[in-house]
């Protein structure tokens, strides 16, 4: 099997010749490993795609998740200056806003004029965006999707290594767009105060994200990951999950599956109370399954409950095992995960969440050795 075939077999719930191995990189980890400019990694498509390809090679992963797309080839035109301040780069934009780029994590904005988030009662559905031109990456941090170059990063990687390796695109859940629109706290309270209006907003984003997902399918990606970090028990109840997440992600999953492309959900933290419900959306698999203390999922239990519903991609604890653990801890933990995960196929070995920035290279390379020794 090629790595691409291996990952596909796992996503098809079949057994594989070797255990597929594929973790997602945090931008901080890429920066710390490759010693590149954080400004270029964020803005420049070539730096970004080259980094993903290079790090896959270093770690001998079976695939690559392309977590950002839509890079603007003329990004430099919007930048007035780049200044080195301590261990960070400060970029001043033509708008007057500043972006601070640490050397080990996501950038963050310092707005010239802070734009207040909308209150739910102030939201006019007519004023919601008609084009999805941003990815809500983190709190107050958008990645702009250039409409003329929406998927260049993905197609470049597919053209370069896609015949051999599994290439996955990424979209963001409607629930994230919703919370990003209103602010996390006000958005969560809005679910209680004006649930019907919240649902209308969620449907609006669902329509746009479905369109984006279908376009992404056309690039030839092997799978699409739905980033849905706020859908776990750390934020909302199982009932609210059924009301404010499931119907919307279901619509997207249905559309993507009809195209013959796999789609899986990434929800961090505690999801043990909703594993089966997550599969009601029609997704092909689940990523993360954070074990305690980060989450509350024991792989053995998850495998019993959902192992036949779809594939599992996980669930190495990136912080407590990889970042803070010894080599012995890693070997012990990963072997346990492999023993449980690979029963009846449908398993991709991966970190639960993305690789924490400061995890040492040798520790990730150890994963390949463990897999190859089995």
């Amino acid at each position: 099997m090629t790595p691409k075939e291996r990952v596909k077999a796992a996503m098809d719930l079949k057994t594989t010749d070797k255990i597929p191995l594929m973790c997602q990189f945090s931008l901080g980890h890429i920066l710390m490993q490759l010693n590149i400019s954080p400004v270029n990694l964020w803005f420049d498509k070539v730096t970004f795609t080259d980094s993903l390809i290079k790090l896959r090679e270093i770690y001998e992963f079976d695939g690559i998740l392309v977590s950002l797309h839509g890079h603007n080839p003329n990004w430099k035109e919007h930048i007035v200056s780049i200044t080195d301040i301590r261990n960070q780069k400060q970029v001043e934009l033509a708008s007057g806003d500043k972006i601070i780029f640490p050397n080990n994590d996501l950038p963050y904005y310092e707005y010239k004029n802070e734009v207040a988030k909308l209150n739910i009662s102030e939201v006019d559905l007519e004023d919601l965006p008609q084009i999805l031109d941003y990815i809500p990456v983190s709190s107050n941090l958008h990645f702009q999707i250039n409409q003329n170059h929406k998927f260049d990063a993905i197609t470049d990687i597919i053209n370069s290594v896609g015949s051999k390796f599994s290439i996955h695109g990424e979209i963001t859940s409607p629930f994230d767009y919703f919370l990003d629109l209103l602010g996390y706290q006000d958005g969560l309270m809005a679910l209680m105060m004006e649930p019907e209006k919240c649902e209308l907003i969620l449907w609006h984003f669902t329509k746009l994200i479905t369109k984006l997902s279908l376009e992404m399918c056309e690039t030839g990606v092997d799978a699409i990951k739905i980033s849905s970090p706020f859908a776990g028990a750390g934020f909302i109840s199982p009932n609210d999950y059924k009301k404010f997440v499931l119907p919307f992600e279901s619509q997207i999953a249905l559309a993507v599956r009809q195209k013959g492309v796999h789609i899986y959900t990434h929800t961090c933290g505690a999801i043990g109370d909703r594993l089966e419900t997550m599969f009601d959306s029609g997704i092909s698999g689940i990523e993360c399954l954070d074990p305690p203390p980060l989450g509350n999922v024991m792989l053995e239990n998850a495998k019993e409950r959902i192992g036949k519903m779809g594939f599992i991609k996980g669930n190495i604890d990136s912080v407590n095992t990889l970042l803070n653990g010894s080599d012995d801890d890693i070997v012990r933990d990963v072997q346990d995960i492999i023993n449980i995960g690979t029963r009846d196929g449908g398993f991709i070995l991966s970190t639960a969440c993305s690789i924490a920035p400061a995890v040492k290279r040798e520790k990730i390379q150890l994963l390949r050795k463990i897999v190859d020794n089995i």
Partner: protein
Amino acid sequence: MNEIIESIGLCIEKGKVNKASSYPIDMQGKDGADEITKSALIQNIGPDEILKTCNDAMQRIGEKFGRNEVFVPELLMAAKAMTTVMEHLKPFFQAGSIKTKGKFIIGTVAGDLHNIGKNLVSMVVEGNGWEVIDLGVDVKKEKFIKAIEENPNSFVGLSALLTTTMENMANTVKEIKAEYPSITVIVGGAPLSAESAKKMGADAYAANPQEAVLFLNEKIAS
């Protein structure tokens, strides 16, 4: 009198802010924390009694949150109702007729801008009768030290979501302990555990807001 006091507690626990609020559905059209507190004060019910019922209600909702019986939206609504009551009680705090349990300084550590966990802890701790001094996000260690200097005998809470800021958290704990060895420091956040908290020299790790409250209350009781 008991009935009105209990109603305030119920409004907080259920997140009923005022009459106009449509949440929760089963209390639509009824008076909320705002109206009932106003009425209680007019009826000369002691602010200390109102405060106690608020603290009890926030403790109950915090416990439910810790047991995953309610989630962040419900907790936020309860905190909003609590804040409404506190607005009415503000003059009594200023006059000194009611007092808080102590001061709790909180912030996310340098480099960390993620504030939802910190805000939830602030709300629940405040709701349990503490004065909260919220230093906000991306707080440098010098700012924590200055806040401690200005508020002797306070307790300190540090929050971090990112693994990359755990080092800053450890440095902040170290600095605080070097300057003020007797100050109690609680840490919390997704990448942390009791073990990592101990390793960085913190006095306690709180996995959720209620654990922070329990620790603080135990500290002042001992």
